[in-house]
């Protein structure tokens, strides 16, 4: 095809409405011929977005999504479940629309190994998938044992609840069972970790519950850091809504936990006195999900280096790593960021498979946190990626104003819910 014919082709498709207006460009296949085979491991914010958008951008590409679970429970809004604002169904999403409406082949299985030379993925049930491009979006795993005494078995007594689902319900159950006047300990890890504002939103939502049900209780946040995301806004909100209930202990004042004892429900900081709690939410240090480790995609710190313009692995060609598992700072490990990366990754794969030029990538992020049901705060950023990697656009983004009035906080609380409804519809709808 000559240049001019191709241009007209695009215009025609656009005007005929044959392709979604969100599609970057149309690629048409006939006769069942595939323009390539993409396998995606992990059906969370990154992987499910990438699957859906690949099919929208390039319907000729065959997309197979491998996900261990039959449904996905989101970490976003799991704190609101802990606070009693929603039940677990509100944060549980299914793969029917991806399968039925968007033509993604969804396989419920676990990817056990990757052979980058043969370009295959072995599944634990025994089958093998071949790929032209592989997207690895496994989320996080925990560094069990990094805190002495805290392993997977200990997480039954001291839930991390940092992967939503049964752990969320377990923590909620413990909060419901604890006495009025009891102590809740939240132990927050050092950077980097999934959802930087998450531990502090969690303290807020637990405080919301305790204020109504057990108002003499206390929340102690033991932190392995000396500051945290949206700190001035959280501290202002805690003072306004939960005076005296939440105490934050930074690393420099003995906030870092080095050991736990499940039997006596005690945490041991690196210095200072041990502390017992009625409920202990231990959020341990993290690393990229297991398949990324097994496949050698992760580096020394446990996370996966990528070309931040495409999210192709720095280790293996034709393998892409997106979401929490990837090194993408200054982007945070958030669901929004993972979804943003999933869209750029889908575009870059479609471009690569069809021999097109990838446009300059652009990413963004908005993280809402609920301090109370009618008290929302946010942090936002816009990013570009060049040869030097991802950079925040100067002058853009930042946190909600400190001097905002109650109407502003209330609007952001309702936008937080609206954001959740939109992004989950955009990904799993």
């Amino acid at each position, binding site marked *: 095809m000559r240049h001019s014919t191709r241009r007209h082709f695009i215009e025609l498709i656009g005007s005929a409405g044959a392709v979604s207006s969100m599609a970057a460009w149309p690629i048409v296949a006939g006769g069942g011929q595939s323009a390539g085979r993409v396998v995606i491991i992990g059906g969370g914010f990154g992987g499910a977005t990438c699957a859906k958008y690949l099919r929208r951008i390039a319907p000729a590409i065959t997309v197979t999504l491998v996900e261990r679970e039959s449904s996905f429970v989101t970490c976003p809004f799991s704190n609101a479940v802990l606070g009693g604002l929603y039940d677990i169904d509100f944060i549980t999403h299914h793969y029917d629309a991806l399968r039925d409406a968007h033509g993604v082949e969804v396989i419920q299985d676990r990817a056990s190994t990757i052979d980058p030379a043969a370009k295959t993925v072995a599944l634990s049930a025994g089958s093998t998938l071949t790929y032209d491009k592989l997207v690895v979006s496994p989320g996080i795993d925990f560094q069990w044992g990094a805190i002495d005494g805290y392993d997977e078995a200990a997480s039954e007594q001291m839930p991390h609840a940092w992967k939503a689902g049964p752990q969320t319900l377990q923590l909620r159950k413990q909060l419901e069972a604890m006495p009025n006047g009891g102590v809740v300990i939240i132990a927050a890890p050092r950077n980097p970790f999934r959802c930087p504002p998450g531990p502090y939103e969690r303290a807020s939502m637990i405080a919301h519950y305790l204020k109504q049900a057990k108002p003499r209780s206390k929340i102690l946040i033991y932190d392995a850091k000396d500051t945290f995301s949206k700190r001035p806004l959280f501290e202002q909100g805690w003072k306004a809504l939960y005076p005296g209930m939440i105490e934050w202990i930074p690393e420099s004042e003995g906030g870092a936990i080095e050991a736990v004892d499940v039997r006596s429900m005690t945490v041991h900081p690196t210095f200072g006195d041990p502390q017992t709690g009625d409920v202990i939410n231990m959020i341990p240090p993290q690393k990229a999900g297991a398949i990324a480790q097994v496949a050698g995609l992760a580096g020394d710190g446990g996370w996966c280096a990528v070309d931040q313009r495409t999210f192709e692995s720095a280790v293996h060609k034709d393998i892409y790593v997106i979401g929490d598992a990837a090194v993408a700072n200054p982007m945070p490990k958030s669901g*929004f960021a993972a979804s943003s990366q999933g869209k750029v990754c889908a575009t870059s794969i479609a471009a690569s498979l069809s*021999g097109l030029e990838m446009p300059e990538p652009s990413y963004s992020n908005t993280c809402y946190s609920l301090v109370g049901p009618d008290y929302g705060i946010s942090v936002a950023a816009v990013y570009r990626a060049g040869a030097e990697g991802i950079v925040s656009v100067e002058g853009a983004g930042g946190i*909600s104003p400190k001097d905002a009035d109650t109407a502003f906080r209330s609007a*952001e609380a309702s*936008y937080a819910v609206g954001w959740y409804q939109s992004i989950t519809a*955009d990904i799993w709808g």
Partner: protein
Amino acid sequence: MQRPIHTLIITAATLAGVVIYPATADEALNRGAILSASCASCHGPEGRSPGAIPAIAGKTAEDLRVMLEDFRSGKRRSTVMGRHAKGYSDEEIQLIATHLGKQK
């Protein structure tokens, strides 16, 4: 009339089982798409918001351009849109507005 001719080309190609890559994908179209990709995360798929955040489907490119510029300058008050709009140049705002203006 050009349309019937192009329709014939597509039909012929489809029948022949040929994969067509419109490889000159218009630079502006692509950049507009990638710059706009995150909008759906708050404003909903195709700009149709299911919740409290205002929908952006059905707005003209010109309306969207003016809104984005006014968010950026602060002329139009917002919670978070001003913080986002400051991340884009005039040219990029035009590309975003043109792209999103096609959402019905």
